[in-house]
């Protein structure tokens, strides 16, 4: 058995005295291994990582370093002293710096001479480090000139370097946390990044935080599964034989008792096609996507994160363009590059559950609802907003969506997460577009609010609105969809009915 480099035991963390983010979680990292930490959004992954790098103190727990008990780090600097450093998902890179400047940023002290910095020495040192870690790039390049995967590698090298410099020891093994490192990368770039990381394994141990199952299966030695703040499973992939489905079920949990709402949707789907996609392709994201969306139908696009599902829905919304293929909306072919307002004019609305993406937080509920419905509240003869009509519309939606608020003139930032979501979707309820795109419609909100949102969407469906759903939550698909497309690596694998889908998920 190799040495346990870092081990934490019984870590618990509560926020605001109510939300239990972590409950008695214990994990260990040994020398030269890659450990996966997986879980849904809100499972406690990032809280655990923030405790490991000293951003939050835990409520309770023990920390062992090579078997010795020591206190938790109070800040990221102390975490570096304990051999831990983190590479964040985004915004870690400073694009306008040269590679060697970025690599040694914050450690210039060792290169100071009277006439400024010893640049040659810095470059030489940087070159050595990059060579050691097999990062193929020139130190004179600017960071932004590098491909994204190489940028990530430089960041990882930098993290290892910071631990070494802190200890003044080149042979120390550091533990590097990779927080969803592949999120901004395309499929090809991911491959490259992983082969590079595997090369680095002899220099460091890695904690790989992700919710992309295939990646975790392929590249990690052991996997910890978190759900609702608890450690629910721990697999040693080199010894146990487990499948992607096993891991998937561990992540989402077997029981679906969480969902009280059992919809009775009569699946009335008419014969009119409202949207047709033929061989839609965007290289690096998705390939040959074809489907027909009927009036009143809901299609789910299901797949692991990074499979291209969210790119597909964003393409239909007009947020990104496609490269090849044909997209026909209500009989009219659309251009490859078309902004969301043109798509809305064609009858496509887009709803995303991501907080603050759609909502105008410093606005009142009234304004947030009327923003897509201005045509309805203009006076008849002069195009002037009627505040009365606006007020009535907002009151109607607040009542119908059961939004808990002191009044319609409350600013949206003071609402709860669920209410915010309801305001966002309420405006589409009033507008009733022909097609509504739903991306993670219930992300991060409580069961009650979910139920209300499911009810609203089913109602909208009944009234003849077609929908496309993309979500991280498989249960949502069986509740809302008439047809579910499986996407993997940007391609449609199979198309299932909700019953088949449930069966696949259950086995």
């Amino acid at each position, binding site marked *: 058995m190799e040495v346990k480099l870092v081990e934490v035991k019984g870590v618990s963390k509560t926020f605001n005295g109510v939300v239990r983010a972590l409950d008695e979680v214990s994990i260990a990292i040994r020398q030269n291994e890659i450990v996966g930490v997986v879980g849904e959004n809100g499972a406690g992954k990032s809280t655990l990582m923030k405790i490991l790098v000293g951003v939050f103190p835990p409520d309770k727990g023990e920390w062992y370093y090579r078997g010795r008990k020591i206190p938790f780090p109070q800040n990221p600097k102390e975490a570096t002293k304990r051999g831990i450093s983190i590479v964040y998902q985004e915004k870690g890179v400073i694009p306008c710096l040269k590679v060697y400047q970025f690599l040694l940023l914050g450690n210039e002290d060792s290169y100071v001479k009277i006439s400024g910095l010893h640049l040659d020495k810095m470059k030489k040192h940087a070159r050595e480090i990059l060579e050691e870690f097999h990062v193929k790039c020139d130190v004179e390049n600017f960071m932004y000139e590098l491909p994204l995967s190489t940028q990530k590698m430089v960041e990882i090298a930098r993290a290892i370097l910071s631990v070494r410099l802190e200890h003044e020891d080149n042979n120390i093994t550091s533990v590097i946390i990779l927080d969803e490192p592949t999120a901004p990368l395309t499929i090809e770039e991911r491959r490259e990044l992983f082969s590079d990381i595997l090369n680095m394994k002899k220099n460091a141990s890695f904690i790989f935080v992700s919710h992309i199952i295939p990646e975790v299966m392929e590249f990690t030695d052991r996997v910890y599964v978190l759900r609702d703040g608890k450690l629910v499973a721990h697999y040693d992939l080199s010894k146990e034989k487990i499948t992607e489905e096993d891991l998937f079920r561990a992540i989402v949990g077997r029981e679906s008792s969480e969902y009280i709402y059992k919809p009775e949707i009569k699946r009335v789907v008419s014969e009119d096609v409202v949207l047709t996609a033929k061989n839609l392709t965007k290289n690096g994201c998705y390939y040959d996507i074809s489907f027909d969306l009927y009036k009143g139908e809901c299609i789910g696009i299901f797949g692991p994160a990074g499979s291209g599902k969210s790119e597909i829905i964003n393409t239909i919304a007009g*947020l990104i363009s496609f490269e090849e293929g044909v997209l026909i909306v209500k009989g009219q072919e659309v251009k490859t590059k078309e902004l969301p307002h043109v798509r809305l004019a064609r009858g496509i609305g887009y709803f995303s559950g991501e907080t603050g993406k759609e909502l105008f937080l410093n606005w009142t509920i009234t304004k947030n609802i009327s*923003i897509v419905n201005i045509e309805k509240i203009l006076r008849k003869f002069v195009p002037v907003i009627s505040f009365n009509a606006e007020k009535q519309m907002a009151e109607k939606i607040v009542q119908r969506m059961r939004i808990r608020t002191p009044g319609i003139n409350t600013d949206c930032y003071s609402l709860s997460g669920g209410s915010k979501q309801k305001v966002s979707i309420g405006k589409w309820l009033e507008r009733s577009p022909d097609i509504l795109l739903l991306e993670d419609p219930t992300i991060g909100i409580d069961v009650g609010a979910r139920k209300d949102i499911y009810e609203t969407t089913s109602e909208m469906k009944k009234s003849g609105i077609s929908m496309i759903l993309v979500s991280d939550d498989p249960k949502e698909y069986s509740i809302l969809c008439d047809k579910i497309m499986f996407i993997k690596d940007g391609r449609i694998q199979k198309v299932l009915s909700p019953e088949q889908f449930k069966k696949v998920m259950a086995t």
Partner: protein
Amino acid sequence: MKIPGRKKLIPPVIIQTLKTHPVIIVLITLFMMFSSLYPERFLTPLNFSTILKQFVTLTLFALGPSIVVVTGSLDLSYVGIWMLGGILVWLLMPILGMFSILVIPLLGLATGFLIGVIQVKAKIPSFILTLSLLVTYSGLTATLSGGYPRPVRGYEFITARLIRYLPTAFLWSIPIIIAAVFIIKRTRIGTYLYAIGSNEEGARLAGINVDKYKILAFTLSGLFTGIGSIILFQHLGGATPVELNLNNLVWPLVAIVLGGTPLIGGSGGPQRTILGALTFTVFYRGLLLSLLHPQAIQLLVGLLLIVSIVVGTRGLKGVTIT
């Protein structure tokens, strides 16, 4: 603890107004301070008339840009439009006669549209773009004029006195102010501009043609500045200066920010700029009458701008900025 009787002392409407427009408190305080310190100088019809004159100048300059600030951008071209417009009037007078004054709003419209298109297409910060344009216009003014201010006669009727002590320019500015406030508060354009300033991504997702409305904001700003400059042209002496005066640039900005339109956008607007302009004018006139050294006043104006920017951006406790 709430005392039921106290509620009636100050009607809720007033409390609400003061909460959303905290600058009113500043205005009243300044007014009372100056009137009690030196009533014989401050509380005179002549002083009020001067305050109104200066208020008009400030408002007409600041009205257009405050529409742009709502979207989270900045338009500094107003002084340039006024200066270049004045010289163009002089140049075109022999050809167009009295109609040459109309060149100012046309120039404003074209300038605003141009800035909007460049800003949207090139995606550069509006601050630096409009500042460069301002310098270009002031250079162009100096070149065209040959370096001297060129007075134009024939437009005296614009500011001919109708009522004693009441500047006619003030009467002219009323419909312009109403139009600006109306557009921003009661039409779809206004709502969309606020949306862009508040959350551009959200505005795009709500199906707003963000680029189009940004161009529209700059165009409106240019147009309002242009129309205002017709009055300002005569109001400020029937000629425009050929050298850029920093006060002309900075004071309207102070009026906008002091009025409660944060430069990050999403709230405020022309209706607040009016209050800001009035408060600033009272502040400035009060200081001028206090026999302080002019340089010291300049210093205080600078400090006021800093304070109002900080307060406007961070917000005050208990003050909602919407």
